């Protein structure tokens, strides 16, 4: 078959058989491998993938990124499925119904190849089907929350996008059922995914289908109830999830505010730390008005004879001293200092972007209460037994709801209403239709615990359980996930959720930290050496087995071409860097692939009819730490008590490389520069 030369300029003219629009993570090694393999082939290719990253992200709902015929049936049987296709091809060819030469390829992850898929792979190879099995090996099983999620941290609530590595996060201690603080060990961007909203009576959260939640498992009368992790897709209406109802008593906030030197009411006294009175003042502020630092003005829209005005006048005098003026509808303070001070506290500027800033969550109970009372005085009104708070700012309602929930209040969900144009609002009429939201809340009553014994956590100080009322698809949103040390869970939007993970497979390298073999204080990660699948496949005595890496594209392409010219079963193991599971940078997939080859962690070789040949010898063999250092999953190996593991790893690599060189035929190719 006349083959196209392997030159990038020529290859770039070929059609993309794996299109953009797929949903693999930014910087993933696997689509690079698929692209390179399909570019190398001059034959039409039919592919099969087992369940895995590639399958789920390339063919989802009614979209497919494959421009070649592609099939997926299950997790453990890609080799058997493609064997079936290849058999039908042979049968139809024999009957004269097909005359084209077609190549059959499997693109399978290491999970579906080394572990659950091993049996069908071995069977298919033994039977001699004419197929090429390509394993994209990223060394683990590699799931998220919407970026609008609010996380409980030591410094108050933060949007998940604001959480950083090293932050102290609140978690649920799964042994004592108490609130604990744990370190965040990583933040992951999972891209845009389908997001579902889970709603309970008082809480709601948006997450993807595979995000685990802590659910109560009732084990029956006389037995201890337990908690189990269930993925969102497994949760049923009526399941009880664990929610946060109280935070630890906090400390008054300290303010670091310096007054402006020149001009203005220097007699204004700015307090150094928070107090219940100040919080009440701020509560009223949040409800009612604005501060204009540039103009040096703070204004409250509180008409005469309202209770709120009385309170604010008293409080102002108590906290700040003098300087407050009033007319029929408004109360003013002209003070650059006060305006700046309030602005610095983070409550937002105008009606639409107000919110409860994170630090309010760290205050002691009395101060939080004061704040809530201030809010109730200003913008809420009683409806029956509960209070209703209205606002145009969704952020404010969300943060307020969380604050109320953790201060012994019961809160309903956020309702929307539209106020039509022309409605009177304080002294103005609305110029157009405006969207408002409101929440209803009331104090949690000290219930007789006997009545609620079915509520498993009723005596628990911090946590409660709530029944799931609905789970609905709400759309596609950017998603993020956190890794939390120790308990591996955190509290998002008041609900206890798991950090998703990266579980070990038999391809996971020695010493790696994954969620199912975590690097703890006693066991430092995975203690088993990874399976050498390439050599296992070579022992099947199939005509061609090879190891390749995407950074060495020419070597990979040559191997694919060689494989396609051979009849019978072929196997290729290709390293696929995964920045999520490896906890490396988004841009270093190719770099890590190159380092893997140069450190001889992933030697490039082939076994053709039983004869081993190294196809690339690194110019200079680098120490293994060069490959390990850029990866977060090996970070714990660089602690002093784990130095022995680094030595072991280097020794193992050296041993294997020596052995490989021994069995390799003398025709080793010298290190060739990969660029032309």
């Amino acid at each position: 078959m006349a083959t196209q030369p392997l030159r990038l300029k020529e290859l770039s003219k070929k059609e993309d058989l794996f299109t953009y629009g797929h949903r693999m993570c930014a910087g993933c090694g696997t689509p690079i491998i698929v692209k390179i393999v399909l570019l190398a082939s001059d034959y039409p290719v039919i592919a099969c993938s087992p369940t895995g990253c590639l399958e789920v992200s390339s063919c989802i709902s009614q979209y497919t990124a494959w421009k070649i015929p592609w099939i997926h049936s299950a997790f453990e049987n890609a080799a058997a499925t493609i064997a079936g296709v290849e058999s039908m091809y042979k049968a139809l060819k024999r009957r004269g119904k097909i005359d084209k030469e077609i190549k059959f390829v499997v693109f399978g992850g290491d999970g579906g190849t080394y572990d659950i898929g091993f049996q069908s792979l071995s069977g298919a190879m033994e039977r001699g089907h004419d197929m090429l099995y390509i394993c994209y090996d990223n060394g683990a099983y590699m799931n998220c929350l919407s970026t609008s999620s609010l996380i409980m941290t030591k410094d108050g609530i933060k949007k998940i996008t604001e959480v950083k590595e090293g932050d102290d996060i609140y978690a649920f201690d799964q042994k004592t059922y108490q609130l604990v603080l744990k370190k965040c060990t990583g933040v992951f961007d999972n891209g845009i995914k389908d997001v579902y909203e889970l709603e309970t009576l008082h809480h709601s959260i948006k997450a993807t289908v595979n995000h685990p939640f802590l659910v109560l498992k009732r084990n029956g009368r006389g037995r201890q109830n337990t908690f189990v992790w269930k993925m969102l897709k497994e949760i049923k209406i009526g399941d009880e999830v664990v929610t946060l109802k109280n935070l630890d008593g906090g400390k008054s906030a300290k303010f670091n505010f310096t007054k402006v030197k020149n001009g203005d009411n220097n007699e204004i006294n700015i307090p150094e730390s928070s107090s219940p009175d100040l919080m009440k003042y701020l509560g009223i502020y949040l409800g009612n008005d604005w501060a204009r630092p540039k103009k040096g003005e703070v204004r409250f829209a509180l008409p005469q004879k309202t209770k709120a005005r009385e309170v604010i006048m008293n409080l102002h005098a108590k906290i700040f001293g003098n300087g407050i003026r009033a007319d029929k509808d408004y109360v003013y303070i002209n003070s650059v200092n006060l305006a700046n001070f309030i602005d610095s506290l983070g409550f937002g500027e105008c009606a639409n972007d107000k919110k409860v800033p994170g630090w309010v969550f760290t205050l002691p109970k009395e101060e939080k209460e004061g704040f809530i009372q201030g809010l109730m005085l200003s913008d809420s009104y009683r409806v029956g037994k509960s209070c209703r708070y209205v606002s145009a700012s969704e952020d404010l309602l969300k943060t307020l709801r969380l604050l109320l929930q953790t201060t012994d209040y019961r809160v309903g969900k956020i309702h929307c209403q539209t106020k039509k144009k022309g409605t009177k609002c304080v002294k103005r009429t609305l110029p157009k239709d405006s969207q408002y939201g409101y929440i209803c809340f009331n104090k949690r009553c000290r219930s007789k615990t006997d009545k609620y014994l079915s509520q498993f956590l009723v005596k628990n100080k911090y946590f409660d359980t709530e029944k799931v009322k609905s789970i609905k698809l709400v759309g596609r949103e950017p998603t993020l996930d956190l890794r939390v040390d120790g308990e591996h869970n955190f509290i998002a939007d008041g609900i206890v959720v798991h950090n998703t993970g990266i579980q070990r497979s038999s391809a996971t390298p020695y010493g790696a930290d994954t969620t199912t073999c975590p690097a703890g204080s006693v066991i430092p990660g995975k203690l088993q050496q990874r399976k050498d699948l390439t050599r296992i496949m070579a022992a099947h005595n199939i005509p061609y087995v090879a190891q390749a890496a995407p950074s060495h594209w020419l070597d990979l392409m040559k191997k694919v071409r060689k494989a396609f010219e051979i009849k019978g079963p072929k196997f290729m193991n290709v390293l696929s860097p995964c920045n999520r599971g490896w906890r490396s940078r988004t841009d270093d997939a190719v770099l890590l692939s190159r380092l893997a080859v140069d450190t001889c962690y992933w030697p490039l070789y082939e076994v053709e009819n039983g004869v081993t040949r190294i196809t690339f010898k690194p110019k200079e063999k680098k120490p293994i730490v060069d490959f390990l250092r850029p990866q977060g999953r090996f970070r714990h190996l660089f602690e002093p008590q784990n130095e022995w593991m680094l030595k072991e790893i280097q020794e193992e690599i050296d041993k294997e490389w020596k052995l490989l060189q021994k069995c390799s035929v003398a025709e080793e190719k010298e290190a060739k520069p990969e660029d032309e």
Partner: protein
Amino acid sequence: MKPKGWRELPLGGVILEAGNAVEFKTGGWRAFRPVWNEENCIQCLFCWLYCPDMAVIVNDGKMEGFNYEYCKGCGICALECPGRKGQKAIVMIEEGK
């Protein structure tokens, strides 16, 4: 894509329009975007080769720029770019700047 009713579904869920993932624009995932400085480009085409999202536009063997509708901003192209005389032909800048 509008969700279909059960009568409109293809038999067994088979997807007959190969490669229709192009209808799903992933450009919105970016936090950083690649910018091409033509004067430093030696037309090695590594950016095109290593882009996981096929977002580097190459016509007639020549690199011409990026398809920002799909580029996820991973930065592999910028890192792998050899550039000319030590100056990269691709740099990553913050999206929105």
